[in-house]
């Protein structure tokens, strides 16, 4: 951002700053008002005209919001879900990008198109079968009431990865991804966008470097892990910020595949603060501020990465 300042005539400067400030106030107002309301008393949210400036600092609202819905648990759930998806995106995109950038193989264009087409298929064309797969009960090919076997199943269930039902009478076992972290993350663990982003970066690594390294006995995986991935750190940073934000802000999928109160994510949990009859706006806004903190930290710290990621999809070249 080392741009030279342009010389504008003084009246243009005033006009530009005036417009910039005016628009900034409009854009930022909703977030500002959410913060002000989160600090107001219950009666202050009912007054007319609405309070535009804080007069009291009701930190108690935050305590109450955390009690009204198990927000810390929801935050944990969302962070686990988003981390799972992000980590998987980083690994799977690096692997696939390596194949597209460094290996000459038959049908490469065909597989490239397969990846590309997943970006064209809208979610509503796949969500009903995915909902059925993830929330359905799937019978397991083997079953036993052996203590160790049941113990292992209970351990996995305890980590909220897969849920099991064991029927000792008929000796049948079934599993479901409903209300589990894996169910939240699984359908979204691969990314075509990320693959293209990392591939673009890998293409700038000289092929000679790859050939020399692999001839010297460096295995492909080692080359990927020790040379290519460190070089592609900027692209991976972009992908990480982008994937985390996208998953954290997901709404419909978590709504469909979680029913257990303890497995909800923040976006769903937040709307549970809404009480249709007696809307406690100061609590709702405290909840909004709490769930916005992680994304705003990410937005400020990873601003450059995020913007690079967003524009990578739009401006080609």
């Amino acid at each position, binding site marked *: 951002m080392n741009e030279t300042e342009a010389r504008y005539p003084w009246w243009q400067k005033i006009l530009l700053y005036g417009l910039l400030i005016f628009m900034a106030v409009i854009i930022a107002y909703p977030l500002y008002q959410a913060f002000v309301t989160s600090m107001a008393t219950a009666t202050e949210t009912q007054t007319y005209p609405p309070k535009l400036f804080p007069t009291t600092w009701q930190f108690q609202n935050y305590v109450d919001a955390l009690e009204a819905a198990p927000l810390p648990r929801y935050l944990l759930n969302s962070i686990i879900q988003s981390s799972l998806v992000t980590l998987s995106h980083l690994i799977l995109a690096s692997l696939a990008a390596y194949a597209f950038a460094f*290996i000459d*193989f038959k049908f490469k264009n065909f597989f490239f198109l397969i990846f590309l087409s997943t970006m064209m298929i809208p979610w509503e064309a796949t969500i009903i079968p995915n909902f059925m797969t993830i929330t359905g009960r799937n019978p397991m090919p083997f079953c036993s009431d052996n203590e160790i076997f049941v113990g292992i199943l209970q351990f996995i269930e305890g980590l909220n990865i897969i849920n099991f039902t064991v029927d000792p009478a008929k000796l049948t076992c079934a599993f479901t991804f409903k209300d589990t972290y894996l169910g939240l993350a699984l359908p979204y663990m691969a990314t075509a966008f990320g693959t293209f982003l990392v591939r673009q970066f890998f293409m700038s690594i000289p092929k000679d470097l790859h050939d020399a390294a692999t001839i010297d006995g460096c295995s492909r995986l080692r080359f990927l892990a020790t040379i290519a991935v460190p070089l592609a750190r900027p692209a991976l940073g972009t992908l990480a910020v982008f994937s985390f934000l996208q998953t954290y802000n997901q709404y419909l999928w978590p709504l469909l595949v979680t029913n257990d109160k303890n497995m909800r994510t923040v976006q769903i949990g937040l709307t549970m603060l809404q009480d249709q009859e007696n809307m406690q706006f100061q609590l709702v806004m405290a909840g909004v501020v709490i769930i916005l903190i992680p994304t705003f930290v990410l937005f400020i710290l990873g601003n450059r990465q995020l913007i690079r990621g967003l524009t990578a999809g739009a401006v080609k070249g």
Partner: protein
Amino acid sequence: MTISPNALDPLRSSARTTSQVQSAKGSRAVRNFVTAMLFLAPSLIIFILFVFIPLLKTIQLSFYLTDPIGRMAAFNGLDNYQRVFDKKELLNSLQVSFLFTLYVVPSTIILALFLAVLANARLRGISVFRVIFSSTIAVSAAAASLIFSFFFNPSNGVFNYLLDLANLPRVQWLVSDVSALPAISGLTVWLQLGFCTVILLAALQGISQELYESATIDGAGFWSSFRHITLPMISPTIFFLIVVQTLSALQTFTQINVLTKGGPVGSTNVLVYLIYQAFYFNSQYGIAATMSVVLFLIMLVLTIIQFGVLERRVFYS
């Protein structure tokens, strides 16, 4: 001329090496293919299980009668399609979805263009404004909906307060079937502004300053530079945004579910919400799949039309 064995020898040996090279090449091609597949496999498995098979299954479901847990009971050809189009609900939802897209997409892009041009001014402190203008990227649709539900409050919300100040009649916002859809559109415009501004600003920054300088020397003012340089240069980006924003507007769900649940009297019952109700609440999987296919086809046709009509007017340098 007799051919001595000596003369033949090198020929034969060279023939042997060619065939050896060929077979080595062939086995290397196979090996490369297998290696590439291993690198692509994790992504491919996810795509096949959660994108391609579900897409085909959605299409298949749309031709079947289904039982309450989504199993296909009987093939019934195009009956689902006939049933869906006979209902008034689908036609209403199509109308609502199109109207919503019409409210949101043009206003978002025009406003974002205005913000991007402002944020492209080379002034001291401009990066602060750029961060503020792009800040809604970090806001989830659920959080935005809750914040605006406070503003839409008919008795003491800030929107009716502003109308009172301007001596205009009050509006019932989300409570009335006339104003609910425009109200949700307004909040969606705010939510999408950050993304569109970032994309347009990146496009503006890609235009060479020399173009403007030579235009200024030729006596072109701001408007004429804007019309003859800026707009043509960023037309591919505007086109990209029109396509992406249209698709995203047609798939809007969160705002509707948090704020109105399709009401009042179906005035915000967008197609995606109708699909959600059909399979999640009414377990009509076949009907829901049919509507998904309809929406998928509409989006496909719209995208093709946009490519056909708009792309011809776009200037690619």
